[in-house]
């Protein structure tokens, strides 16, 4: 492990350094001893400038082209020579146009030219190892990247444009109204604070809870757009998995990139089907084996299966359903599943009939990768299975961040506790705690604090005073 790390710390690493999502500009960063050399391989300057020769901390105009000579984006290249950079290594930052396409294209070109995809937090780790920052700072930065805190305010502002933030704020206001009335009645028991009736409050809380649930439901779709649908292709050898993958890769050439899985070490390919990103996870095989090396691969594949959003199970129509197929099917049958019947070009109607009897018909798609038949139906099937037949445009708002989802879930859980506390007739001081926790959780998304808001509202809405 140590040796591995040592080796990898000598690599030039590259990553998209700006948060995902649509924005005006984006940044791809390269760092490592050979960063300038690798950058030069893909950077073309109209003035024929070489980044290896320019003065440190200069900005240079040019284009990125891939190794085949195709222009990908117009960029500004910022060169920072060691040790005057964040990592204390030679660093190049390409300011690109925003949007995932150009950014991924530039990253892809850098990777093809010899850089390695950076692991999460690796730039910070290097900064720490090279004495640029201390451990606490390094941890702090990583915490900041990962944590709630009021960094959330900044991210929230960037991310929750328009409708989503409006919507969450609306829910939050309703909750704040209730909390305000409850708190006012606690702190000013001798003033005339109108009381909620039992059913009135219960009704209000329920309707807020429903709105939260709706939002949470939308988050699945949102996450698919943001991070891709984790898709595993399974099937016995030679049923056509690779050709299917190659077909997708071919079609989407410009935006194919190798990215490491976020939660595991399985290498995946990111492809886009009509705007919907699929993260296709390469499975080494999922069956039992005695081979030690293969075992590791099998373990990883099975792990991928566990977290997969979608499983494409491929059958070779010409072979009918074999024992091996059944074994695989049993492993994946409870997942969101599409069964691909490949090689229909070989037209074996009998086997097809048999397959139709064995599986539910709406899971089936008959294709021929070779003749590019049935692939449109496959895309439609993916949409209808995963997205309930909706596209992004059909949603009023989408939750795209895990952090937001977590906050919404926390809020909803607190609210549920509040409702059952209220129904059980638990005292107001306890009920108020659940309400407040629900509010705090929502505030983590919108970046607002609770106490002052409640107190301001108490004074604004109730006539209080001795």
């Amino acid at each position, binding site marked *: 492990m140590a040796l591995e790390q040592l080796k990898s710390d000598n690599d030039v690493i590259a990553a998209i350094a700006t948060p995902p999502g649509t924005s005006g500009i984006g940044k791809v960063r390269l760092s490592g001893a050979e960063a300038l050399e690798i950058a030069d391989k893909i950077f073309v300057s109209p003035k024929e400038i070489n980044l290896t020769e320019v003065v440190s901390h200069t900005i240079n105009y040019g284009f990125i082209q891939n190794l085949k000579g195709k222009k990908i984006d117009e960029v500004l290249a910022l060169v920072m020579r060691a040790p005057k950079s964040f990592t204390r290594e030679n660093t190049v930052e390409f300011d690109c146009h925003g949007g995932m396409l150009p950014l991924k294209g530039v990253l892809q070109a850098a990777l093809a030219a010899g850089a390695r995809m950076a692991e999460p937090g690796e730039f910070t780790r290097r900064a720490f190892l090279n004495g640029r920052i201390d451990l606490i700072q390094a941890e702090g930065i990583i915490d*900041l990247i990962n944590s709630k805190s009021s960094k959330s305010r900044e991210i929230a502002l960037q991310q929750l444009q328009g409708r989503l933030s409006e919507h969450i704020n609306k829910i939050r206001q309703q909750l704040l109204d209730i909390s305000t009335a409850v708190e006012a009645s606690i702190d000013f028991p001798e003033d005339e604070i109108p009381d909620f009736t039992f059913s009135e409050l219960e009704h209000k809380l329920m309707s807020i809870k429903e709105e939260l649930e709706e939002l949470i439901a939308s988050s699945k779709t949102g996450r698919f757009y943001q991070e891709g649908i984790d898709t595993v292709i399974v099937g016995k050898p030679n049923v056509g998995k690779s050709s299917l993958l190659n077909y997708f890769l071919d079609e989407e050439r410009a935006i194919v990139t190798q990215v490491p899985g976020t939660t595991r070490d399985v290498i995946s390919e990111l492809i886009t089907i009509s705007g919907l990103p699929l993260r296709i996870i390469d499975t080494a095989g999922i069956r039992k084996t005695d081979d030690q090396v293969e075992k590791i691969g099998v373990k990883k594949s099975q792990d991928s299966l566990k977290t997969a959003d979608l499983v494409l199970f491929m059958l070779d129509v010409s072979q009918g359903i074999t024992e091996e197929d059944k074994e695989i099917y049993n492993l994946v049958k409870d997942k969101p599943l599409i069964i691909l019947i490949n090689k229909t070009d070989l037209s074996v109607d009998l086997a097809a009939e048999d397959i139709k009897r064995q599986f539910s018909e709406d899971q089936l798609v008959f294709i021929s990768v070779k003749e590019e038949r049935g692939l449109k139906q496959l895309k439609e099937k993916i949409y209808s299975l995963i997205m309930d037949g909706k596209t992004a445009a059909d949603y009023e708002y989408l939750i795209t961040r895990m952090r937001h989802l977590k906050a919404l879930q926390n809020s909803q859980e607190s609210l549920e506790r509040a409702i059952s506390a209220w129904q059980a007739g638990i005292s107001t001081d*306890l009920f108020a*705690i659940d309400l407040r926790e629900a509010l705090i959780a929502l505030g983590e998304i919108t970046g607002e604090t609770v*106490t002052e808001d409640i107190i301001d509202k108490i004074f604004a809405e109730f*006539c*209080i005073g001795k």
Partner: protein
Amino acid sequence: MSRYNYKDEYPKKYDIIVVGAGHAGCEASLAAARMGCQTLTLTVNLDHVAFMPCNPSLGGPGKSHIVREIDALGGEMALNIDATMTQIRMLNTSKGPAVHGLRAQADKERYHEKMKQTLEEQANLDLKQDVVEELVVEEGRVKGVITKTGLFFRGQKVILTTGTFLKAQVIIGEATYNSGPNQQYPANELSKSLKRLGFELLRFKTGTPPRINGNSIDFSALKEQQGESGLSFSFLSSPLEEEQDSCWLTYSNPKTHQIIKENEDRTPLFSGEIEGVGPRYCPSIEDKVKRFPEKERHQFFLEPEGKNTREYYLSGFSTSLPLDIQIKILRTLTGMEEAEIMRPGYAIEYDCVASGQFDSTLETKQVAGLYTAGQINGTSGYEEAAGQGLLAGINAALTLKDKEPLILKRSEAYIGVLIDELVTKEPKEPYRMMTSRAEYRLLLRQDNADLRLTPKGREVGLVKDKRWNHFQNKRQELEEAKKFLQNNRVTPTKEVRQQLQQYDSGSLNQPATLEELLRRPEISYQDLAAFSAELPDCSGEVARQLEIATKYKGYIDRQLQQVKKFKNMENKTLPKYLDYQNMDNLRQEAREKLSKIQPHSVGQASRIPGVSPADIQVLLIYLEKKRRSKEGQDD
């Protein structure tokens, strides 16, 4: 000393001088003297020691919590009100133990007399009448005070508890005049002295309603509000047994509101006459009518001012309207048709010290050894003032003994919440305590104030043996009963099931501890006696404590978890006078805020508006670097 003018130096040298003998001043003085410091208390008027210029009452949610905390720490307020109250009630009884709040009517005159007497009889304490006009400061350190009579009193520490007296201005309609509350002598020179020392002063406003002669009120038309038996503030007092006085409710009506609207041009609040910022929780009647035009009536309480007077305080009717209008609107209220005003309502403006000028021990940053407490720090309320006075007295005394200061955490006391907010936030109005300000409200109950704070009071030397023994007995009783509940089981026999049925409680299928039974909302501690003959015979107070701790355990544990989560940050103390301006990587706003406020812990720094989590990371790095370099030196 040459730049100071005084005729004579008083021969006795004091450890601590307290300027003011209101609610903050009295607590500060008593704490200092009881902790063994030679203490001088100077007041403008000895007949107004612990005077109540506004409500003749103490308590309410949040405020009564503070009174109980003062008591738990060894302060005087609770004992004083218990001895002089004419009515007491428990508020919020239907809303759960965390927000129960006592509220008592004081006999205003007796309250003052009793407190004055306590100060007079206190060893190490000199109580004198004189007006402090100047602070004597040398090389940034306070040396004493000079009074109007030209005397220089030398003291190592000075605690300012000037209430609303600094450059006080009373406003009644078109009439304004320089005066402290209730026609008292205002402290104009002291305000100037503070300015000369570089203090930034804010202008706040508060107000009080008219006092009515009870003989002119038709009580038969009013709703009566009686006191309750079995209640007292102090952990050491027994409940009030005397016959209690009543309060009375009356209401305004559209006619009242009409008159107020018609006279808007004569309302100082809207004509620009009043520039001070008033509290939103205590609006004047003219403000209420303007801000809530849809309200058809407003509610007012008539509170008796004492046993030996017929004066009534008309709570909710605070006003600075001209006296002729005050009389007109007053007489539109139910039962007040022939009411006679004895003292008019008025607004009062005063100087206070803007936040950021004192730290969590309440010592000012500009002048070492100078402390501020109470309304001068931008708060409102007798209880809030007393809580600060107590802590200022304790901390001034602790420093003289070279001991660590007492800083109460937000998870430990309302007084901790109060001081933390005064230190970190710019007050926009006089600050009043409310339970909703406390994020650990369930932990900061009034029933457990002694468990939270009496050991701390003992440690600083303020809790004397009587209170300490009482507390230890209670704690022991509690521990033993708790163990008993945990160690004794009930098996689901036929008798047990029948008994449970009697209590309307669900059946039992497997053996359970008594503690588990007590968790059921319908089962009280006393009920457990039916299941266990040896159940310890606890006092009502201890039984109640056990019930709360057991029944609310789930919620209490959740709050304790929260406290634990932030404990590291709260315990990381920051050195005094850190040079934030030259600390790399801090954002400019954070630099300014941190330099100004000088928080005592990283936790406190994180609560300052304008300090971001990234700035906190920078602070943590700084602390770590310092720690490492110190370790390096030690090696």
